[in-house]
């Protein structure tokens, strides 16, 4: 073992380049991280952050460029090699095996660990030490998303990493849990571990990181010392202009109750799912209601029930405009004025092997595109064209395959397709996941405009900032239960954060008991 010299950077990247057939993902990226430094890699969706991290972790090979590890040039051939060097990575989309236990999962990332029992003991020790309690015998599919991330983090910590890469780690955490994780990361940094923190959330970076590399369109657009910057100046570097904002002004009219969910219960089909317990809420015409929550708390199940993809037995549990629709399928509910944008765009909201025009037919066919059982393709094309024009979808023509579009443009097309049908009720899940800031703004504005035209809108999102920006009222879902609603002006991210961990009146965690626990310094997941 060589002694770590404080003057030698832990990691140095020189001219890292990765070219894909359609895009240059990374172009000549240079970056330096010192031991014990928390360094942010900042950029909007699709800027090339993940590609860069995967090159460092040896998942993909750079086309050009050089990596220096503790001053020595290295050619990181695969993740096992990276781990041997002391690089750990916590993935955004976890790399876990659901049907295996925690210990088995961790063992697959270790070179030698003795027996599974030995490993389980070490997992317990280390998890205690870092205040991240974890039962090594549990099956991963029975764990919440937050705990799964803990498994990923522990898997890295067990190898005593010198560099820890965290890819968008906070999207699965409540604001309170984020703070706790930051404490753990600071402690690690104090012990000498360098941390590469990838995010597009400016306030988090300002709070946690020492320095930052900003990437836009695959290139470095700036380096920053966080203490010397403001959120606004970082944003300018990130997107090259001021952050766009939506015009929020709303007509002050009382709307009719449009969607009503009345004690909706649904037992999960299997143990990978969450059961819904007596979910009740309403959405009125002319308002946007946001549903916040950590993913995996029943959002999927609720959305399947609301959209009609999985009808429920109790037909009165869901009403649209006073009509019971619980038993109806998705097409029948659309006849009643429902529009729905799911979070999975390809494969659910759109068919990958089809053109834009054909994908328009998917839900818009009921607007005169079918005559005597035959399709009117001309009409379908005109509809798709309008969608492309109105929502500034960047594409060659409406005959292009939908897969040839970027994530943001696909989302604009699907959202456009639903909005152009003038739904009375629009349900949107994760409207801006993986979408660049420009497209995100167009989509948010479109939802606001729809509301202003008198439609009811329900938005399900994991991004609290987004919900606070566009919603009139907020709901929180935790472990299959939905909180009472609260006006946006009358709440705070703190309160919503607590609610997200289940601590709301009638929520899965008893409020009094939770307070007790909190005062003892325990974290409620």
């Amino acid at each position, binding site marked *: 073992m060589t002694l770590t010299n404080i003057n030698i950077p832990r990691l140095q990247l020189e001219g890292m380049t990765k070219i894909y057939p359609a895009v240059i993902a990374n172009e000549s990226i240079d970056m330096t991280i010192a031991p014990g430094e928390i360094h942010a890699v900042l950029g909007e969706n699709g800027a090339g952050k993940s590609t860069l991290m995967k090159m460092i972790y040896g998942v993909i090979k750079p086309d050009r460029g050089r990596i220096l590890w503790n001053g020595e040039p290295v050619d990181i051939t695969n993740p096992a090699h990276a781990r041997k060097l002391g690089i750990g990575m916590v993935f955004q989309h976890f790399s876990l095996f659901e049907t295996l236990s925690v210990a088995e999962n961790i063992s697959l990332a270790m070179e030698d660990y003795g027996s599974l029992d030995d490993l389980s003991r070490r997992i317990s020790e280390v998890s205690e030490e870092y205040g991240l309690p974890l039962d090594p015998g549990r099956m991963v599919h029975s764990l919440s998303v937050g705990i799964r991330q803990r498994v990923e983090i522990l898997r890295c910590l067990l190898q005593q990493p010198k560099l820890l890469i965290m890819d968008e780690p906070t999207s699965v955490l409540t604001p309170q849990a984020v703070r706790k994780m930051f404490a753990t990361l600071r402690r690690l940094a104090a012990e000498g571990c360098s941390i590469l923190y990838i995010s597009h959330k400016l306030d988090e970076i300002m709070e946690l990181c020492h320095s930052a590399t900003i990437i836009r369109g695959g290139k470095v657009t700036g380096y920053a010392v966080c203490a010397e910057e403001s959120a606004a100046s970082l944003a300018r570097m990130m997107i090259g202009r001021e952050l766009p904002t939506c015009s929020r002004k709303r007509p002050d009219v009382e709307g009719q109750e449009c969607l009503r969910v009345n004690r909706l219960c649904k037992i999960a089909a299997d143990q990978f799912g969450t059961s819904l317990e007596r979910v009740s809420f309403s959405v009125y015409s002319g308002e946007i209601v946001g549903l916040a929550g950590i993913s995996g708390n029943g959002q999927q199940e609720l959305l399947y029930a609301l959209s*009609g993809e999985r009808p429920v037995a109790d037909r009165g549990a869901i009403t649209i405009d006073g009509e019971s629709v619980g038993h109806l399928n*998705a097409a029948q509910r659309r006849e009643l004025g429902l529009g729905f944008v799911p979070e*999975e765009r390809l494969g*659910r*909201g759109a068919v*990958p092997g089809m053109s834009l025009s054909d994908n328009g037919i998917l839900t818009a066919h009921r607007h005169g595109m079918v005559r005597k059982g035959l*399709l009117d393709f001309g009409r379908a094309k005109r509809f798709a064209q309008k969608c492309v024009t109105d929502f500034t979808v960047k594409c060659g023509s409406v005959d292009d395959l939908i897969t040839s579009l970027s994530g943001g443009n696909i989302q604009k097309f699907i959202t456009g397709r639903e909005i152009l049908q003038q739904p009375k009720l629009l349900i949107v899940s994760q409207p801006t996941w993986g979408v660049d800031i420009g497209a995100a703004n167009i989509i948010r504005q479109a939802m606001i405009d729809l509301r202003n035209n008198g439609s009811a809108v329900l938005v399900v999102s994991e991004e609290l900032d987004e919900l606070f920006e566009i919603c009139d009222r907020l709901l929180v879902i935790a472990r299959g239960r939905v909180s009472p609603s609260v006006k946006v002006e009358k709440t705070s991210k703190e309160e919503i954060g607590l609610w997200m961990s289940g601590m709301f009146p009638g929520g899965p965690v008893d409020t009094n008991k939770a307070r007790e626990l909190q005062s003892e310094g325990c974290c409620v997941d």
Partner: protein
Amino acid sequence: MRDAVLIKIEPRPEPSRVMRYCSPLLAALLMLISGLIIFTLLGKNPVEAFHAFFVEPINDFYGLGELCIKASPLMLIGTGLAVGFRASIWNIGAEGQLAIGALCGGAVAVYFNQSSSGFILPAMISAGAVGGMLWASIPALLRTKFNANEILVSLMLNYVAILLLAMLVHGPLRDPDGYGFPQSVLFGESATLPIMIEGTRLHVGVLLSLAGVVAGWVFLEKSFTGYQIRVAGGAGRAATYAGFEYNRLIWIGLLAGGLAAGVAGVMEIAGPIGQLLPSVSPGYGYAAIIVAFVGRLHPGGIFLASLLMALLYLGGESGQMNLDLPSAVTGIFQGLLLFYLLAADFLVNYRIRTKSSQQEGN
């Protein structure tokens, strides 16, 4: 630095439409080249054997008629199967559905053996259609009610159907004056498909198959249900999202195959065979799977692929007669054709690039 030529395989930004149509042609070409190699390995003069296998069978009018007769069931079944395959419903039970169709149609012919009514043929064809659909409705029912895998169920039913046909031809449907041979009476004129062109065996059933292909084209390419089938096959969850009833599409997909195979079965016994035998198909039900794939699940392509596949059948017979080539070679060609197609499809999504490595910096 030498400018060594590197071969690089990379994903295409968008699937190539040109390659989608070229890959079946490429597959056919590769199969023909393999044919030359196989003939050589078998100790035959490759050119001569090639001629005997692929040219001789169709160098006269009679041969062309035979080609159409063989292609007829293949194009019809292939189109029916394509309806299911497009929805990712894998009906591989066409062989059994064909046998049951033949059995039902044949039963009608045997029962009305003395009659010369003009309604017998339509009745046979209807009976065959119903029989094929009933047989296909078993996997459809088990799939929609119990989620039983339609691949395995439809395949198992092939064995059952062929045994059932054999049992009945050995039993109640046997020709009482047939010296105990397991075969039915020879069908009368009223139960036989009329010949269209003198000097060939080309019967009117070929027209029926062509009509089936056209109907399949309209249904698959132009109808809303055809669109729903494409969605269900391309992304099942998108079909649920749109509110298309998946179970209905499963039924349609399987019944279309059963209908086509059942009718094809009747056309075999009322056409070239002329009676019921324990075995009525040289594997058309399986070959039609290949036809459907090579035809890109598109009726137009299926039409062309059925001609190629028919030629393989004829070539096998001709090669056996003229050159003592084993007819089992046909099966090898069929398998190879599908292999090559699946392999060539790689080029739809990927491209191979050669580039010189001069500018390589490290």
